[in-house]
C-alpha cells in the first residue's frame, strides 16, 4: 500500500511540479522568441533578489508575473454567475493535468519495477486522452456564459464551435496511428515506432500535419485563436477574469499545449526515442521534452507570423479541407499497411495525398489570389 502510494507520489509530484515550472519557462520562452522574431529584446530586467545575479536574461520574469497575478484583486462582475465563474478556471486546468498522466514519459529515475512511469499506463490511453480533452470545451463555454459579458459569450460560442469541429480531424488522424500500432496503449504505440517513426511514412506525415493543425485549433493557438481574438472580442471568454483565475486559465492553456504536443510526439515522433537512449535510459525523458519543445517552438513561430482566420473560414477549413483529407488518409494508410510491396507506399501515397490536397486547396480558396495593379501617370 505504502509502496503504491510512494510510487504514485513519485510520478504525480514531478508531473505537477515539473510541468508547472515548465509552464513558467514556456511563457518566458514564448516572449523571448516572439520578441526576437519582432526585432525586440524581450524580458531582460528582473533580477534575483538578494543575490548578485542581475537580469539572468529575464528568466525570473515568470516568477514576478506569477507574484503579480497572485497579488491582484479578484474581480467578479456583479451580474456574473458567481459559482460557475469560479469553477470555470479550475475546470480548464483539470483535463490537461489529467491527460499529462497518460503520456509515456519515462522519468529519469525509472527503475525496473517502475518501468512504465506514466501515472496511468492504460490500454486505451489515446481514447481517454480525447475523451478528457474535450472537457475543456465545457470550461471555456462555462467561463463565457458565467461572465455575463457579450464579448465573453461570443468567445465562448466560438470556442465551442471550433473545438467540436477540430476534434474530428484530430481523432481521425490519430486513428491512422492506432491502425498501424494495433492498439491504443501509449507505450505500445511508442514501441511500434522503434523501427520507423510514423512521421516518416506518407500517411504518417499527412496525419501529423493534420494533427498539428487541428491541435493548434484545439488549444486556441494562432492562427486559430478566435475565442480570444483580442482585436475583435477583447479577450474572448476570459475578458472578465483577473488575477489568479486568469493565471489558471493561462496555466490550463499551456498545459493543454504540453499535453497535445506530448500526444503528437507519442503518436508520430517516436515518443522518447532518440540517440543514446539505449545507453542512457534517462535520456528518454529529455528527448521527449525536447520534441515537445520543438513543436512548441513551431507554434510560437506560427504565432509570430500569422494573422487570424475568420469564423466561417475556420469552420470551412475544418470541414471542407481537413476532414476529407484525413478520411482519405485513413484509406491510404489502410492500403499502405496491407501493401504487398512496401516501397510503393511512398510514391503512391504521397501522390494521392498531395493531389487530393491540391484539389481541395483549389476548391477551398476559390479566387483569392495576389493581384496586379495598374498605374495612372
Amino acid at each position, binding site marked *: 500500500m505504502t509502496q503504491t502510494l510512494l510510487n504514485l507520489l513519485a510520478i504525480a509530484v514531478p508531473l505537477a511540479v515539473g510541468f508547472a515550472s515548465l509552464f513558467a519557462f514556456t511563457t518566458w520562452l514564448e516572449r523571448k522568441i516572439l520578441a526576437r522574431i519582432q526585432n525586440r*529584446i524581450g524580458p531582460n530586467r528582473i533580477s534575483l533578489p538578494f543575490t548578485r545575479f542581475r537580469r539572468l536574461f529575464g528568466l525570473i520574469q515568470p516568477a514576478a508575473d506569477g507574484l503579480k497575478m497572485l497579488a491582484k484583486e479578484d474581480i467578479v462582475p456583479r451580474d456574473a454567475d458567481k459559482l460557475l465563474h469560479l469553477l470555470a478556471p479550475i475546470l480548464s486546468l483539470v483535463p490537461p493535468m489529467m491527460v499529462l498522466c497518460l503520456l509515456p514519459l519515462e522519468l529519469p529515475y525509472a527503475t525496473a519495477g517502475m518501468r512504465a512511469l506514466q501515472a496511468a499506463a492504460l490500454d486505451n490511453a489515446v481514447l481517454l486522452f480525447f475523451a478528457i480533452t474535450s472537457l475543456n470545451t465545457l470550461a471555456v463555454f462555462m467561463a463565457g456564459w458565467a461572465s455575463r459579458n457579450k464579448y465573453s459569450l461570443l468567445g465562448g460560442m466560438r470556442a465551442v464551435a471550433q473545438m467540436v469541429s477540430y476534434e474530428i480531424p484530430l481523432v481521425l488522424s490519430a486513428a491512422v496511428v492506432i491502425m498501424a500500432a494495433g492498439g491504443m496503449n501509449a507505450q505500445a504505440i511508442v514501441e511500434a515506432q522503434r523501427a520507423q517513426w510514423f512521421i516518416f511514412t506518407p500517411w504518417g506525415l499527412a496525419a501529423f500535419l493534420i494533427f498539428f493543425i487541428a491541435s493548434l485549433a484545439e488549444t486556441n493557438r494562432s492562427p486559430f485563436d478566435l475565442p480570444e481574438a483580442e482585436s475583435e472580442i477583447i479577450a474572448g471568454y476570459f475578458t472578465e477574469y483577473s488575477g489568479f483565475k486568469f493565471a489558471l486559465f493561462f496555466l490550463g492553456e499551456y498545459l493543454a499545449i504540453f499535453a497535445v504536443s506530448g500526444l503528437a510526439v507519442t503518436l508520430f515522433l517516436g515518443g522518447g526515442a532518440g540517440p543514446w537512449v539505449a545507453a542512457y535510459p534517462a535520456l528518454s525523458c529529455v528527448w521527449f521534452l525536447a520534441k515537445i519543445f520543438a513543436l512548441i517552438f513551431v507554434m510560437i513561430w506560427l504565432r509570430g507570423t500569422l494573422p487570424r482566420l475568420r469564423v466561417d473560414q475556420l469552420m470551412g477549413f475544418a470541414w471542407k479541407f481537413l476532414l476529407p483529407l484525413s478520411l482519405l488518409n485513413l484509406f491510404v494508410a489502410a492500403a499502405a499497411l496491407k501493401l504487398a510491396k512496401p516501397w510503393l507506399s511512398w510514391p503512391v501515397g504521397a501522390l494521392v495525398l498531395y493531389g487530393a490536397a491540391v484539389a481541395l486547396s483549389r476548391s477551398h480558396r476559390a479566387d483569392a489570389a495576389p493581384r496586379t495593379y495598374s498605374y495612372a501617370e
Partner: protein
Amino acid sequence: MRLLGFGILKGMAVTLENFVRSYFDRDRRHHLFTKEYAWEPGAPAEVLPARADTTVTAHSRNFPILLHDGADPMGGIRCVACQICERECPPQCIYIEKDYDEQGKYIKRPAIFDIDLSVCMSCQICVEVCPFDAIVMDSQFELSTANRFGGLLQHRDQLLKSNEYYHRIHPEEARARDDRMAQEKAEKEAKQAAADAAKKKAAEAKAAAEIAAEKSKPEPSAPTAGGAA
C-alpha cells in the same frame, strides 16, 4: 494553383530570418533596433548630445527655459518682461508680471515668470517670437513630480538656465543663435555709431552753418534765437 499554405511558408521564412539574424546581425541596427535611450550604445554619434545627463538628443526640444548671461541669474537675465510670448503662446501656459523698483519705475525684467508644464505643448512658438533671445527649449525630460498641481508649475528661478547650459544641450543651435546675436549686436552698434557719427556731423554742420550765418548776418535779433529762448 498551388497547395494551400505556400504563402504562409514564405512568410514564416521571413520571420525565421529575423529571429536568427537578431542573434547574429553584426551591427545590430537592422535586426534588433530596440534601444532604451539615445545615449545607450548603438545610438548614432551625430545625434548624441555633448553631455548625456538627461537630454535625449542634441536636436530634441521639450520645454522652455529662460536664458541668462554670466554667472548671476538675475543679473544677466535676458528677458525684459515684454509679454510677447505670453500673448502668442498657443495653449496660454505662460504668466508674466513686470518688475518695478521702489519708485514704481519699470525695470526691464520679470517679477514673475511662470510656465505651467502640464499645459505647455512644446511647440516652440515662444522661442520664435521672442525678440531678445531670452527663451529657448530645454531637452530635460525627467520632470515627474509627486505634486500634481504645483509640481509642474515652473517659476522664474527654476526656469533660469545659463547660456553655457544651453550650449551643452543644443550646441549647434546655441552657436548659431550666439552668432546671430553677435551679428545683430554688431549691426546695431555699427548703426548706432553711424547714427552717432551722422548726428555729430549734423551738429557740426549746423554749428558751422550757424557760425557762417553769424558771420554773414551780424544782427543779434534773430527770430529763431528768440524762439529758442
